[in-house]
């Protein structure tokens, strides 16, 4: 079995490649032309193709002998239009090429951000309401791009009759990527912790990668849409404590009840920012909810469908993220200091 992995040298992608190899699946890794992959330590069996989905013209050859596409690539930096053009335009080019190939199986990396948090109460699982147009366009560049990427992929799948698995990870965390938007608002080295007892829908990058490899190999994943979280999630206060201990950061933590912050944000939005076109994410009610709304999360459907349990427990994940660096992932090039998105 051979998998084509886009975004293969990204934060998630490099672990997905390792997880696929561990399951004995051959890997063709698609990386950008100028990407440096030597430090990733991939074995020679990994077939590297260089292409930039934002501009590549002919991608059909990349699908030669490929049984499954694992589509992870997304543009997560730059302005809203750059993210859309890279993530959605890139997916159009990639799936046009797939349509001209013999490959009929696709695993898409979507996101929790496609859910409408504001309309969700109590439990956010696969049955939770999704964002709708035109409301989605108030959610910011990342959400618009990921929502469109999934919408577009489903259209191709319907038209071409492919087998699709959509995986929607929560906050993906790991080495160099420990700070999460769910932790509230950072001011210098201090933290305003909004809803300290709220649970975070989180998945460690190695656990998350394991689900992608499993979904690629397991026929039970076909036609499924599955959320990826490692479990019910740690509480914001607990994880922030572990993050600060792990990184050695020192700073004050000011706990603010979620209901109070939510009321202030909504009042400010109605009175001051209603007509504003550019407001910081945390002051926009829909984005505030997507980052911080206290909901319950579980991975029941993932467990029941694929029989999956996370290979690493929380303590092991902390050790992998903040402990001594294993030799195999040295010189990781993923930019740190940017909050992980969902």
């Amino acid at each position: 079995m051979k998998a084509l992995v886009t975004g293969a040298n990204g934060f998630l992608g490099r672990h997905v490649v390792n997880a696929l190899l561990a399951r004995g699946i051959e890997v063709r890794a698609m990386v950008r032309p100028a990407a440096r992959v030597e430090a990733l330590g991939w074995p020679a069996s990994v077939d590297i193709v260089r292409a930039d989905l934002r501009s590549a013209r002919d991608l059909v050859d990349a699908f030669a002998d490929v049984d499954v596409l694992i589509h992870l690539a997304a543009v997560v930096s730059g302005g809203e239009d750059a993210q859309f053009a890279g993530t959605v335009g890139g997916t159009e080019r990639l799936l046009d090429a797939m349509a001209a190939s013999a490959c009929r199986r696709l695993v898409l990396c979507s996101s929790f951000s496609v859910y409408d948090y504001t309309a969700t109460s109590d439990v956010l699982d696969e049955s939770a309401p999704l964002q709708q147009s035109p409301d989605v366009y108030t959610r910011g560049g990342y959400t618009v791009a990921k929502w469109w990427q999934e919408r577009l992929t489903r259209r191709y799948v319907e038209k071409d009759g492919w087998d699709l698995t959509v995986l929607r990870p929560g906050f993906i965390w790991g080495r160099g990527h420990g700070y999460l938007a769910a932790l509230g608002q950072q001011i210098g080295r201090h933290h305003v912790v909004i809803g300290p007892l709220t649970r975070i829908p989180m998945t460690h990058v190695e656990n998350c990668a394991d689900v992608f490899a499993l979904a690629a190999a397991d026929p039970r994943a076909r036609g499924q849409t599955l959320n990826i979280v490692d479990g019910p999630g740690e509480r914001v206060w607990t994880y922030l404590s572990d993050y600060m201990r792990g990184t050695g950061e020192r700073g004050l933590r000011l706990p603010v009840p979620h209901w109070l912050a939510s009321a202030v944000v909504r009042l400010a939005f109605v009175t001051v920012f209603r007509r504003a076109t550019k407001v910081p994410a945390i002051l926009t009610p829909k984005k505030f909810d997507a980052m911080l709304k206290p909901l319950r999360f579980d991975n029941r459907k993932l467990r029941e469908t694929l029989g999956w349990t996370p290979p690493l427990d929380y303590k092991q994940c902390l050790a992998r993220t903040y402990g001594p660096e294993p030799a195999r992932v040295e010189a990781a090039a993923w930019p740190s200091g940017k909050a992980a998105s969902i």
Partner: protein
Amino acid sequence: MKAALIGAGQIARQHLTCLNTLPGVQLAAICDLSPATAEAAAERHAIPSWFTDHRQMLETIRPDVVHVTTPPTSHFRLAMDALEAGAHVIVEKPATSSFEELQTLTLRAKQTGRHVIEDYNYVFNHAPQEILRKIETGEFGAVTHVDILICLDILGPDGFADPNAPHPALKLAGGAIADFLPHLASLSHAFVGPHRSAQTVWSKRKPSPLPFDEFRSVIEAERGTATLGFSASAQPDAFWLRVYGERMQATANLFETRLTFDGPRNVPKPLRPFFSGLDEGRDIRRAALSTLLRKFKGPGAYEGLWACLSRTYQALATRAALPITIEDVLSVNRMVEAMKPREQAA
């Protein structure tokens, strides 16, 4: 008046958002080679129809005005097609890749009785317009010189210097800086008129995919002189405009709202710098606040684009004189042509 747009990229958002606020303008259709991009823009801006083939859009919609906001090398072909379909054309800068293309385009516009407007948005920002107003009333005195310098870090990996996907502007003579020449030339043109001669220095300070990252030019124009510049290394980012008149001087940063004037005042000469300094400090503090507040609302530094579009549509509706004429476009582009490098850097 029925408007349509080709090319739903970054700058298109400003055009579309503005068009939806203009009275008497119906945003009828949008076109992009990417179906998802066209459809998403249509949904976001409540546009009733979207296309991936611009000719089909022109035939189906028959728009009165077509906005061309694609990468610059495709402008000429799309603008010609829009003229042939009987539409006026508002094209993003640079209007064409070469002056010959522009001459063909403007000639065809005259033959068809349509207009071609190149977007000189910064000329219509508040600061240049306020300086032009003072010049018109005589308060400023005749302009002797204008100094314009854009300091903008374009060497980061996500934009013009992207090592993975070459930016379309790199195909222009002068590379990424050529994308900014219409701004420099149009502002110079607004204050000192058409150029007579230009001397330029193109150079490269840092390794990057860009052929040049520094540019300076000295212009002799009909009503005065100009020094124009672009620096990818000078920081922080700023867009400095200094206008020197026979009675006053003005300084503006067009990335912000900062605008200060210095001129004659009724105080003993030794005290003039003191009072000028106080006034300037007050104006800068006010600008600091208004620059912050405008981040929350409206077009920000694109205020000039909105003003330009508003005035253009008003003029088209009433058949009045346009804020940017075909003669202006030709004159500005003659200056751009004179400033272009004769050869690419090694």
